[in-house]
Structures are given as C-alpha cells and as structure tokens.
C-alpha cells in the first residue's frame, strides 16, 4: 500500500500515532521515510549533546519497553467500515501481572479494549480492576507483562491527557484546592486552554461550585470533578473506575449517555464496575475478572446467551401428572414443592400445550431466565476473594417480578 492510501487506513494511523499530525493534517502526505521516524526523535537528533543530556536529566531515562512495541492490533472485518478515515486507539493488556508482596493482585491478564464500543470491566471487589487501570496509566509498575495504548506504554506519549482520560478509584484531588484550580493545574501541563477547563466544568454541571474547595464536595460532585478531569484532553481512550459511584440517578443517566456517545464517535471506552446490572445497561462488551484473572472476554449478548438457562416454572395442582407427561430425555424437571415444577428444556408454550393435552389445571406458567447478576455471581463465586459464606436471603427482586407477572 502506498503512503497516500495509508492516510485513510485506521490501523496504520493507530500504529503510527507519532506521525498522525502529518497524516491527518492533510497538508503533506507522509513519505515512507518520514513515517518511520518518530517526531520526538527528529527533534532530539537536531539537539546538541548538551541539550540531550539536559533533556534526559529533566525527563528521566526512557523506559525500556517490556514487550515488542510493534503494534499487534488489527481491525475486525466488521470494524473496517466503521473507522474509515478515523483515528483509533486501543488498550492492549498482555500477560499483565502485578504482585504486592505476597498478594497477586493481577495475574496474567490478557485482553484488548476495542474502539467504538463501551467495554465493561466487571468483577467483584478485590478482583484487580483498579490495579489494572493503574498499571495501564503507568502509576504502578507491572511485575511482568505490559499494558499499552496503540502499541506504546502510556509514559511515552507527548500528550498523555489527549491519549487517555481516566477517573481512578477514590478521589484523586487535593481537598484544599478549588475544582477550577485543580483542572487548571492539570490542563496547564499540556497547554490546554482555560476555555476548555470552563467547558468541561459546564459539561459535568459544576459551574456553581467551581470556585469552592474540592474537600467540601459530596461523593457525587467529586465524581463529576473526576469525570471533568478525564474529559479535559478530549481523549481517544476514556477509562473510568466505578464512574457511577455516588452519582444521583440523573447523573448516572448522563454518564451512560456520554459514554455511549463517545463510543459512537469511535473512541475506546473502558469502565469498571462490580455491578452487572450497571454494566448490562451501558456496556456492549464485557471483560469479567475475578481474583486477578480474566474469566470471560466476550460481547454482552454472548454472555447473556451463554448464561440464560431457559426455565419455565409451572404451578399446578396436578404437578405430578404433568411431570410424567412432559418428561423426555432432554427435559429436566425439578420440583421445589408438590405443586411447583421447574422445567428446563421446554418453552412455556410447549409446557402449556402438554398440560392442555392431559387436561391439567395450571395456576401459573412463568418463563424464567437466569438474571445476569446471578450469572455473574455464579461465575465469580469461586474466584471471589471476599466471598461471604452463602447466606440465604429472600430474593426481593424476584418476589416483585412475580407480582408484576
């Protein structure tokens, strides 16, 4: 492929981020030689040896990449049309491991967060979600493995806030500083204009309190401030750790819409939660983790299909007759009480017709599906570190649903 064609090839743009300004600017077509030499290196070659020495004193020695920085990402055929002439960024986590003393917080995780969809990072408390996000941002150093964005470690970008916008667990704000000054201090490092600071404050609805100390903020306001900081650089990748924590319903709705809109723009959206119900409303793809390991990495739809056991609950005074009428090799029937049958392997229509054939009276005929929350709990149960001994509690949600049905 000649260089001109590459201008519109998203994978090429993704893997050659360092020349993207030339590639996307359109002013000049990147020649093959120009595209091979990162901009930063060009400028440092022009520098005197004294200049290079001072530069390495200020910025520190370059991190040695832990994996081959060559970009291993490729677009799926279904994605090719979506991202024509579009920048894309991808988080690639490969064999990432992080050990804190004896504790293995992240254990050989490998997954990719793709552009254009909201990817949910789901797992119980202590599963390693927050640690993984800190590793992606370079805040913690991995014990082994690597996390890269567009094939490069986060530390190597010349404008990291434009690359990844992150909201981390807990607060990451000095309590004595106003919201405006907090965002301004972050923006200044990159030369992001003050107008953008005011813009993100408006976006998250903090205008009225922007000049107040962040220490006095409620949990929800603190969360909004963290989201504002994540949006500051208009980043390619947005990564939020439990973003709905402490948000009011309106705020939750707003963040959901925002994230879906950002994904629709072709950005990479990665958010963590320990609540399946939350994820099922926002995410299209799931990475489910437990005890530092990836348990599932699949589209939400596939997860639903995998875990929905179709069970029909029948309540009938002639339960035992009905049971013998429907029993077949691939039908499983369990009776939780003399008049209640749970039938697996038949649709409610088939059960109803079978009942009609033998003239059995039906009081209730309810198709049931395993809730996602339950599937998630089952999946992570053995893995969950803080698993409480199973306590039988009345399932309030179930009762309500039954009344509604």
């Amino acid at each position, binding site marked *: 492929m000649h260089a001109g064609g590459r201008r519109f090839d998203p994978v090429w743009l993704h893997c050659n981020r360092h020349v993207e300004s030339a590639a996307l600017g359109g002013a000049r077509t990147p020649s093959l030689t120009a595209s091979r030499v990162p901009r930063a290196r060009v400028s440092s070659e022009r520098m005197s040896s004294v200049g290079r020495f001072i530069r390495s004193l200020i910025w520190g020695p370059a991190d040695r990449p832990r994996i081959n920085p060559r970009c291993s990402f490729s677009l799926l055929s279904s994605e090719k049309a979506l991202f024509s002439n*579009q920048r894309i960024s991808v988080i690639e986590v490969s064999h990432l491991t992080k050990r804190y003393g004896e504790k293995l917080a992240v254990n050989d995780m490998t997954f990719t967060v793709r552009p254009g969809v909201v990817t949910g990072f789901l797992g119980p408390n202590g599963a390693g979600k927050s640690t993984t996000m800190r590793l992606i941002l370079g805040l913690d150093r991995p014990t082994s493995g690597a996390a890269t964005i567009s094939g490069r470690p986060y530390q190597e970008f010349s404008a990291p806030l*434009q690359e990844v916008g992150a909201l981390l667990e807990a607060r990451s704000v000095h309590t004595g500083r106003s919201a405006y*000054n907090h965002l301004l201090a972050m923006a200044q490092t990159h030369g992001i204009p003050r107008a953008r600071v005011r813009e993100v404050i408006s976006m998250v609805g903090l205008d009225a309190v922007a000049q107040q100390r962040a220490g006095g903020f409620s949990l929800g306001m603190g969360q909004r401030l963290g989201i504002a900081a994540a949006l500051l650089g208009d980043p390619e990748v947005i990564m939020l750790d439990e973003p709905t924590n402490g948000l009011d319903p309106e705020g939750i709705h707003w963040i959901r819409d925002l994230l879906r809109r950002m994904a629709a723009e072709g950005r990479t959206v990665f958010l963590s939660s320990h609540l399946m119900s939350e994820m*099922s409303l926002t995410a299209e793809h799931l990475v489910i983790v437990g005890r530092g390991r990836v348990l599932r990495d699949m589209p939400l739809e596939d997860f*639903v299909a995998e875990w929905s056991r179709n069970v029909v609950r029948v309540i009938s005074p002639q339960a035992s007759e009905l049971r013998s009428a429907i029993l077949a090799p691939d039908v499983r029937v369990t009776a939780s009480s003399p008049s209640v049958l749970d039938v697996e392997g038949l649709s409610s229509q088939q059960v109803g017709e079978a009942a009609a054939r033998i003239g059995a009276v039906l009081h209730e005929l309810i198709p049931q599906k395993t809730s*996602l929350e339950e599937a998630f709990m089952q999946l992570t149960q053995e893995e969950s570190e803080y698993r409480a001994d199973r306590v039988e509690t009345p399932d309030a949600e179930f009762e309500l649903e039954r009344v509604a049905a």
Partner: protein
Amino acid sequence: MSATEITAGVPTEITAGVPAAPRASRDPAVRLTFPRIMRSEWIKLYSLRSTRWSLLVTLVLTIGLGGLAALARESHPRGVLDPLSTSLTGVQFAILSVGVLGVLLISGEYSTGMIRSTMSAVPKRLPVLWSKLGVYAAVELVILLPAVFAAFFVGQAILSGKHLNIALSTPGVPRAVVGAALFLTLGGLFAMALGAILRNAAGAISAYVAIMFVIPSLLGLLPSSISNAIAPYLPAKAGGAIMDITHKANTLSPWAGLAVLSAWTAALIAIAAVQLRRRDV
C-alpha cells in the same frame, strides 16, 4: 440456586453498524513541556490556602522574632551576642516553618490522592519533582530575601537606640544576610525531598525536626572529641555557618558550610528522584 426472572436489558441503541463520526484533528500544540509543568506546579502552590498561611508565618517569624530579640537586648551586657545574629534570631525558627511547607507541598499530594492526577498528567514523573523543587525554591527566595533584609534593618534600627547596631557595610554582613535566605531555602528543599521520600507529612516533619534540632543537641551527650568532629557537618549547623561573621570553634567556614548543606539536600533529592522513578505512585 433458585432461578429468578428478568434478563437485564441489553442496550437497545445499537451503535454498531454506523460509521463513527469523524472528529476534529488534534491540536499539535497541546503537549507536555517542562515550562508548562512548572506553571502547573505554580498554580498548585498558590491555590492552596495553607501555602499562603505558611509563607506568612515564615515572614512573621523571620522579621518579628529578630525585632523582639533586639528589644530584649537592653538588659544584656554587650558582647554576649553579636548584633547581626540578634536581628537574624528568627531564622532559627523560620527554618521549621519553611520545612513544614516543603513537606506539605509534596506529602499533601499523596495524602489526598492528588498524586494520581498529577502523575497521570505527567507519567514520566521526574519533571514534576524538578518543577516542585524549582517553584518552591523560587517562591521562598522571593519572599525570604526581602524578609531577611527587613529583619536586619528592623533589628538594627532597634539596636541603634542602644548604640549596639552594626552597619550593612561591615565585612561579611551582606553575605550573612543573603546567606540567611539561602539557608532557609535549602532547608525547605531538604524538607521537600524528605517529604518526597517518606510521602507522609507526620513522618517527614518528624524526620526533619530530628535532623535539624534533635540530633544536634543529642550530639552533646557524646564525648566532645567525637561530637566536635561530626557537628560541623550536620545540615543545620553546616548551613548556619553562612550567617557567622566571626569564626566560631568547631564550625565550617561560611561557604563551605553552605556547600555541605547543599550536598545533603542534593543527596536527598537524588534519592527522591530514584525512588519516584521506581516506586508505584
């Protein structure tokens, strides 16, 4: 497991299949530069109320205590203390307040979690340390240089009423007065490096007080042959030599003393830098 109903809703708004809307090209001017990181640290410094209070306390201590000491000189016979060190009495106390501010400017980031925001904006980390040290040193010098001269002139004005004053033109006096500001600034940087290493206000302030005040007085318990050999090289004693206009026993010469304090500070900063690169945030 008792089977329950409802499958949580799969999002109905399907984004797949619709080509992503092209976004505006990025502004290449938006990127990290060292001067910008310095500016960011300057914003962080002035936007905290605790900084302003702490600087005010340093000013009051430096000027006020010098004045008070000059007033108190009346009853003393001449020769016990030289007039210069009387007017610079406050420096011995201000060294504590500059140290506390130095520690708080960096440990406050760790205790509040701000450090995660800081280091995700500047993931190379080191420029943040240099900027913090640079901005803090500049601010302290700008505040302290006028403060030590004010302390000198206020003190001498009070002493002149008692005919005990010394002129600024006396040999060594300008060096001692400017040196007082340098000594305080270096003390602040020393504390800031301790804060960066220990990451904890209580620990770093305790360590600072121990190094600056406690260890020098504990040395007196050792045999004098040992303590006399060590004492001149302790940070506070070495740095304080810059304010001497008469040579004292067991004390380094003024500039050698300041150089020793600078070396201590540089060593701590080097440790802080290595740790910052290696440790998790």
